[in-house]
């Protein structure tokens, strides 16, 4: 089977300026969505209490809320989790007055009044300080990843490519986070891990195109840089599509069958992979081209510096 029988001749670079605008709109839209809706951050980040319970029958959410109000918890979120019998209860961080275990016991008792067969399957109690630190750590992890990757690309290629790669890479987490803000899906630790994986994956994609550009420059001496970039993207297009299909097969399986705990992770990767495909083709190459990448940047002769050979 073959999707592309010959190298296609799409003029990707011709539309790169339109793509910049699209990207800018997407990033601004993502920021707006985060500002307007806010991210539905998990207790991992906000601190608080999460209790997952399994009811014997179908869970009555309103009755559950009522019971928890009676138990003295006004600010409480109750929702289904995975199935109609599973309930997720979320509370803001508990003060110093109540011990974590007392809270768990009280909530369990309250749930049992709604459904005698209610069973606690999981409790998570996170102090607000832990959450704050985690946000800081997550942001610095992303920053460090991006800087290291920029250095690596600059070392393996040229700084212009590094800038292109990093801009494309920055673009992708915005898309993922934006989707989480819009859908209101919970952003937890595993989603953060997925976002970091997307960063790595984004670079991975960009590198494949750049590698081909590097290879083509010496061969296409008479062509303009724009033609070289277009050719490189077209030549790798078949691989790009097949790889995406392969990876998406796996990630969609994770999203559909991995259970509630892996759903967010799966979604982040699905969105991330789609964003990566777009950004590696249009944004990364476009920026590298507009920064004036030319034959001279990647000619092998540049590397030969005879100074070291002198006695």
């Amino acid at each position, binding site marked *: 089977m073959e999707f592309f029988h010959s190298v296609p001749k799409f003029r990707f670079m011709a539309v790169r300026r339109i793509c910049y605008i699209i990207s800018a709109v997407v990033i601004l839209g993502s920021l707006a969505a985060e500002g307007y809706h806010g991210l539905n951050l998990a207790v991992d980040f906000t601190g608080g209490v999460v209790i997952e319970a399994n009811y014997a029958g179908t869970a009555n959410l309103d009755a559950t809320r009522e019971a928890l109000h009676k138990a003295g918890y006004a600010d409480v979120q109750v929702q289904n989790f995975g199935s109609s019998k599973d309930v997720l209860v979320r509370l803001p961080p508990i003060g110093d007055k109540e011990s974590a275990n007392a809270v768990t016991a009280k909530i369990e008792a309250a749930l049992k009044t709604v459904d005698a067969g209610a069973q606690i399957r999981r409790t998570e109690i996170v102090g607000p300080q832990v959450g704050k630190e985690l946000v800081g750590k997550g942001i610095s992890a992303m920053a460090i990843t991006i800087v290291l990757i920029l250095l690596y690309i600059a070392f393996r290629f040229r700084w212009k490519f590094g800038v292109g790669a990093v801009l494309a890479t920055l673009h992708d987490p915005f898309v993922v986070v934006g989707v989480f803000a819009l859908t209101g899906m919970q952003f937890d630790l595993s989603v953060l891990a997925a976002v970091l994986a997307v960063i790595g994956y984004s670079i991975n994609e960009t590198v494949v195109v750049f590698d081909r550009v590097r290879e083509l420059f010496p061969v296409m001496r008479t062509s303009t840089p724009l033609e070289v970039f277009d050719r490189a993207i077209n030549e790798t297009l078949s691989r790009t599509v097949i790889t995406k299909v392969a990876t998406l097969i796996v990630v969609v399986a994770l999203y559909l069958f*991995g259970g509630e705990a892996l759903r967010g992770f799966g979604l982040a990767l699905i969105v991330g992979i789609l964003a990566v495909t777009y950004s590696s083709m249009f944004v990364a190459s476009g920026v590298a081209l507009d920064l004036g990448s030319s034959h001279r940047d990647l000619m092998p002769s540049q590397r030969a510096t005879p100074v070291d050979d002198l006695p």
Partner: protein
Amino acid sequence: MNRYPLWKSLLFAGVMVLALFLALPNVFGSAPALQLSRKDGELFKGDGAVQQFTDVLAREHVTADASFVENGRVVMRFADVPTQLKARDLIESSAQGTYAIATTFASRAPGWVRAVGLKPMSLGLDLRGGIYLVYEVDVDGAVKQVLARLERDYRTALREKKIQYESVEGGPGVVTVTLKDAARLEDAKSALTAVDRDVTLVTETRPEGGAQLRASLSDAQVKERQSFAIQQNITALSNRVNSLGVSEASVQRQGANRIAVQLPGVQDASEVIRLLGKTATLEFRLVDQANNALEAQQTGHAPLGTKLYKQRSGAPVLLKREIIVTGEQLTNASSSNQQGEPQVTVNLDARGGDEMLRTTRENLGKPMAVVFIERERQLREVDGQKVAVDVNKEEVISVATINGVFSNTFQITGLTSHEGLELAKLLRAGALAAPVYIVEQRLIGPSLGQDNIDKGVRALVIGSVALFVFMALYYSAFGLVANLVLVCNVVLLTACLSLFGAALTLPGIAGIMLTVGMAVDANILIYERIREEVRHGISPHAAIKAGFEKALSAIADANVTTLIAGVVLFLFGTGPIKGFAVVLSVGILTTLFTALMGSRTVIGLVWGRRAAIKRLPV
């Protein structure tokens, strides 16, 4: 001809055989088990230790599928949970508190796999259920304690020197002493310096009369106290976790001032937190030599002015009622080797030093003992009502002869180096405890853990099968090679994770899936390149060769960048995220190895021998 160098093919085959061997234990799965350890800390040795338990069970017609000794603990594996619980009750009632019995899971792998030391990946808390606790040590509180002690000691010192003061007040980071008479400033200064010479003292005469001294701890002192507070809590928590007898439990420092405790398989959070929340203290007392301890033990009556204790060995000892120094006055304890002789150096604060000086001066040549007291809050039923009662567990951890007059620093000698380490640990654990509180608490029920495993594995199987079908359809025979290589990759990854003793978590399973999804990329890069070369009209053999060579730089660069992301995740992440990062990073390395060497070996084997290939099945 297009054959891959023989040694490379053999290397690949060799690595895969080894990997299959290492990954093998994971195939058998696990079953409910009991783990027995002796509460006195002694280790089980030999198969005889197992016999006594199998006999107990045999009387009630309960049989274990396997029983063996592992790391000094007896492990008994059962067919199902009811049998496991029944066996636990039987052993508990027959042994009556001599053993810590933990319910756990043990691998179903046959004896020989265990005998050669092969182990399956252990399961993380999210997959097997259990409790995860993060304690934060209040390091500022620990420093405040030192200042409070200083404040108290200053008052005593000034009173003893008959220097009148207006006030001794503790503020944030300082203790301020206000004198009525500025003339006595120098006297006061030397009195305060005698209490602790490392403290920085700032003096100041006041225009309205009198003078002030401000004492603040040096940076080194603050740091020392903080790191002592953390070490002390780690030691104390480790001791208590060990006494729970939970298999694969861990106590680890996390970040600057946190301690993470993992207790797999444990479900009763409040009970565990109560046990871990025990506080400990110390008492230094003189040994009573006038009376016979054995006699006191037999009659059950300690003579007047004495108290009967037990040593770690179980031998009784009578101690005098008066307490010389308590754990609150102990500032540090460390073990070291002086000219080959192990010793424990004990540091006391000024007040403790004074008491010690007086006692040792009067009791030279007499033995002194250290009592370790662990206080535990228990709920007891009194007249039908539940009341919290503090229960003390007391034990003599050291008896040593006073060989000289000393005050706030002294050595305990005559120990083996193991005993020295142990004693220093207990002394530190019994020093004034820095406050800790729980900042994170996670409890995962066993049914949720099983659910997570089932769903994770289901997603992995469905995703992989769909991917295999796609690859076979799209690349025909070469697609099958890619699938074979992918299987090799997962086997190798499993082998590496088992070898490192890494725990598999749910994000870890996701990491394996992501590795599978991304590993095909390397093969796709190679195959697309081969197709391109074929399109250029190059002979099939040359196309294979060129495909591998030209795809190499793209594969290497792409994977190195993902590896960077994985390593950063590992360095910054905690808990499950770390698990994901490990799988992702190791997965990239196994991907590089299998995609480059493995594919080449298999393709070389199948197509390499043929002199001419008309059409490549790619």
